[in-house]
């Protein structure tokens, strides 16, 4: 396979940009659900980094790690959304600023 591949740095740059967009989303948005989506975006950008490095090194270990990240993300979304539903039952709101006390 003799192809002029795209340099690794370009993929890393794209992943860094996606990570930063997700980070700004978490910091700027107030809706808990949209903050959660931004976290998913950040997880995906890190996965992209893993896969890009996997090709760079010519081993599949990075892809396996990305697979495990996917599994953990799925578990995290399940529990996180259940917590958000519960919070909505308590506060009748999905706004992060309304959840500022630990006491129910």
């Amino acid at each position, binding site marked *: *396979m003799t192809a002029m591949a795209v340099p690794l740095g370009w993929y890393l740059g794209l992943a*860094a940009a996606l990570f930063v967009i997700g980070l700004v989303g978490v910091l700027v948005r107030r809706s808990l659900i949209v903050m959660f989506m931004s976290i998913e975006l950040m997880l995906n950008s890190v996965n992209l980094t893993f896969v890009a490095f996997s*090709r760079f090194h010519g081993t599949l270990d990075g892809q396996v790690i990305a697979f495990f990240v996917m599994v953990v993300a799925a578990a995290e979304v399940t529990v996180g959304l259940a917590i958000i539903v519960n919070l909505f039952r308590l506060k009748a709101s999905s706004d992060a600023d309304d959840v500022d006390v630990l006491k129910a």
Partner: protein
Amino acid sequence: MTPLLAQTEAASGSAEFWVFIVIGAVALGSALSMVLLRNAVHAALMLVVNFFAIAVLYATLDAQFLAVAQIIVYAGAIVVLFLFVLMLLGVAGDQAFTGRIPGQKTTAVLLGLALFGVLAAGVVAPFLGEATACNIPMEQRVEAEGPVCEGLAVANAEGNVRGVGFLIFTDYVWAFEVTSVLLVIAAIGAIVLGKRREDPAELTDAPASAVPALRDDDAASEEDAADTAEPAPTGSGAEDDEEGTR
């Protein structure tokens, strides 16, 4: 700048270059609009576009198994879960941005740009240049018309799924088993968290009228009974509606 242009020229002959440019633009655009759109359902749909774009990038990076898993797990399951919760809570429209801290938006964007600068200088810059497409020693790479990128061709010789599966069930088998425990715990946790309390009206700060859909079945059935016991106001309301339409 000049080396970057040279790289661009060198890489522009390949299909991967154009796929990267187009799909990278789609990924960036969908990510930005996900953060900027006020409607949460629109944001979730933009997230689907972003996940598909990343799946295409996985495919170009010789990670076919992950590309398909990305579409099934993320676009198929996780976003559906998001949309389901959005519909369940009915909080889709017009989500505010702000925050209580003054200047939060500006600070967040500045901090994000600073982080991007650090990442670009520290992580991205060392791996720019056509010599860094793969981690192959330079002497093996100089071939007929350009650098040879073996990449995962050797590791994927028997197929990507086979390679990944072999690694998962040999080197990473312990992590894989722990993962199954984690998924079970997450499923049980979600069920426990999702279980309704005996009387949600006592648990909520808001007045009961603010959360009519969240009251338990007894209260709802009582309300229904009250409504049916007094047919006069509902009947008059219907008549009013009819008059309104006339």
